[in-house]
């Protein structure tokens, strides 16, 4: 049985329908990518899972239907790093990390040390306001904050957005290690299809709110239309 299952999920913003019945699943410890162009519904898919947008259809997590209120999903073991990273720019790096562990009892200092081991650059910025960090550091902080929650599932929205290629590689390498160390599952939304397929075991391709292609990363790479439209060769 999969850790996360979406059955026929629909979502709308006012009169505009963003998801027309999306079904997907993420297995235990699996890294799954959601690909697609701008406006295909990638972000909305994540938001439907965490409950930051209202949706219909079933979202089943660890065998239970999700209530789909963001604070409840967060408490249930799903960490969502949203578009724009969702760090608290007015608060310090340390306070951001503390908030990451808000929903559980934990030795916060111990957990923060673990995060600093993954992202040594953050340690020197312990007391700095998050808003003053560079884009790459903010993405590291967003991931670190998610790590503090020790989630079973991480929802990650466009981690590469606006970052230099070398930083993007660092982020994805850290992600792969986090997944391995913690055994968590990851559902990552990414416009950079080449990059995402390199790290993901499986992927879904969204077009205007529908899943049009799904399969292992190799299968997607071999797919003619995926290659032409999204991989560029």
């Amino acid at each position, binding site marked *: 049985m999969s850790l996360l299952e979406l059955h026929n999920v629909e979502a709308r913003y006012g009169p505009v329908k963003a998801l027309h019945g999306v079904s997907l699943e993420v297995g235990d410890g699996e890294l799954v990518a959601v690909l697609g162009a701008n406006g295909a519904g990638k972000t909305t898919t994540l938001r439907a899972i965490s409950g930051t947008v209202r949706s219909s259809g079933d979202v089943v997590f660890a065998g239970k239907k999700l209530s789909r209120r963001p604070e409840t999903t967060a408490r249930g073991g799903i960490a969502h790093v*949203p578009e724009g990273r*969702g760090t*608290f720019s007015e608060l310090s790096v340390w306070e951001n990390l*503390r*908030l990451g562990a*808000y929903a559980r009892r934990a030795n916060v200092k111990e957990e923060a040390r673990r995060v600093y081991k993954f992202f040594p650059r953050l340690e020197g910025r312990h007391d700095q306001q998050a808003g003053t960090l560079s884009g790459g550091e903010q993405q590291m902080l967003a991931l670190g904050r998610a790590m503090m*929650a020790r989630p079973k599932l991480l929802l990650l929205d466009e981690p590469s957005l606006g970052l230099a290629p070398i930083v993007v590689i660092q982020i994805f390498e850290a992600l792969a290690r986090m997944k391995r160390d913690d055994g968590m599952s990851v559902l990552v939304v990414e416009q950079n299809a080449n990059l995402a397929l390199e790290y993901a075991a499986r992927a879904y391709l969204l077009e205007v709110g529908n899943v049009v292609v799904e399969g292992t990363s190799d299968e997607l790479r071999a797919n003619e239309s995926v290659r032409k439209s999204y991989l560029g060769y």
Partner: protein
Amino acid sequence: MFLGAFTWTEFAQQLAAGIREGAIYAGLALAIVIIYRSTRVINFAQGEMATFTTFIAWSLMNHGLSFWTAFPIVLAIAFAGGVAIERVVIRPVENAPVLTIVIITLGLALLLNGLMSVIWGGANRQFNGPFSTRTIDVGSVPISVQDIGIVAVSVGLVVLLGLFFRFTKLGLALRAAAVNPESSRLVGIRVGWMLALGWGIAAVLGAVAGMMIAPVVFLDPNMMQTILLYAFAAAVLGGLDSPIGAVVGGILLGVTITLLGRYVGFIGSTLKLPAALLLILVLLLVRPGGLFGRVAVRRV
């Protein structure tokens, strides 16, 4: 033009009186800022909430309780009342335009004011404070014990709150919910309850301000109305977004208007409020965000 001869002793006494006034404004201004930060709403009922809880203290003391026994009971009632008001009155209109909520707080002020008249009558009442009005010498300046007590309690509460916001998990969650509710939900903070908690804390601040000032003025349903105006002014002066600004703004305003009223002849006690507002107007022309506030830059 000075009224009477200038002496340093009197100046020091005026300064002390100004700080005492300012401490009251600071407490109330802080209450306004706490609610404003989390909801972008100015709570016009803040003064009436404070007076209402002060009346409860008065009733308890009339039934034979000492001030310091009544004090924690009133704070608990104020906290519960603040939380209840948010849950019952504000929550249902959470997503309404800010103006709607502001009008609701105005209505709440009127309602509480009327309730107080019905329950306790409109007459002035003597409120016996915990501090004596005799003076002690600080340096060589005689200052009333009451003034010192009021400042100590008000500032003590502000410091305690500061520590709470800075160092506790709940305090951090309250700050997070105020600056970024969306992300707060994503880490599992129950933002709705944080707003209610903010109202509870604001009500406690108001209750303390009320119980401190009531022995100096008289207790009646309109006791806080002028004081609330000064507190608004103090909050704007410090920057509506800044808790520290509210406290500094309150003290600064208290001292300024007390000294102006005493030493600038034509202002006296009648023109204190306009003079204070004029000062703030000038300051806001130079620093639109207040002393400590930040101006939101909007790109168009």
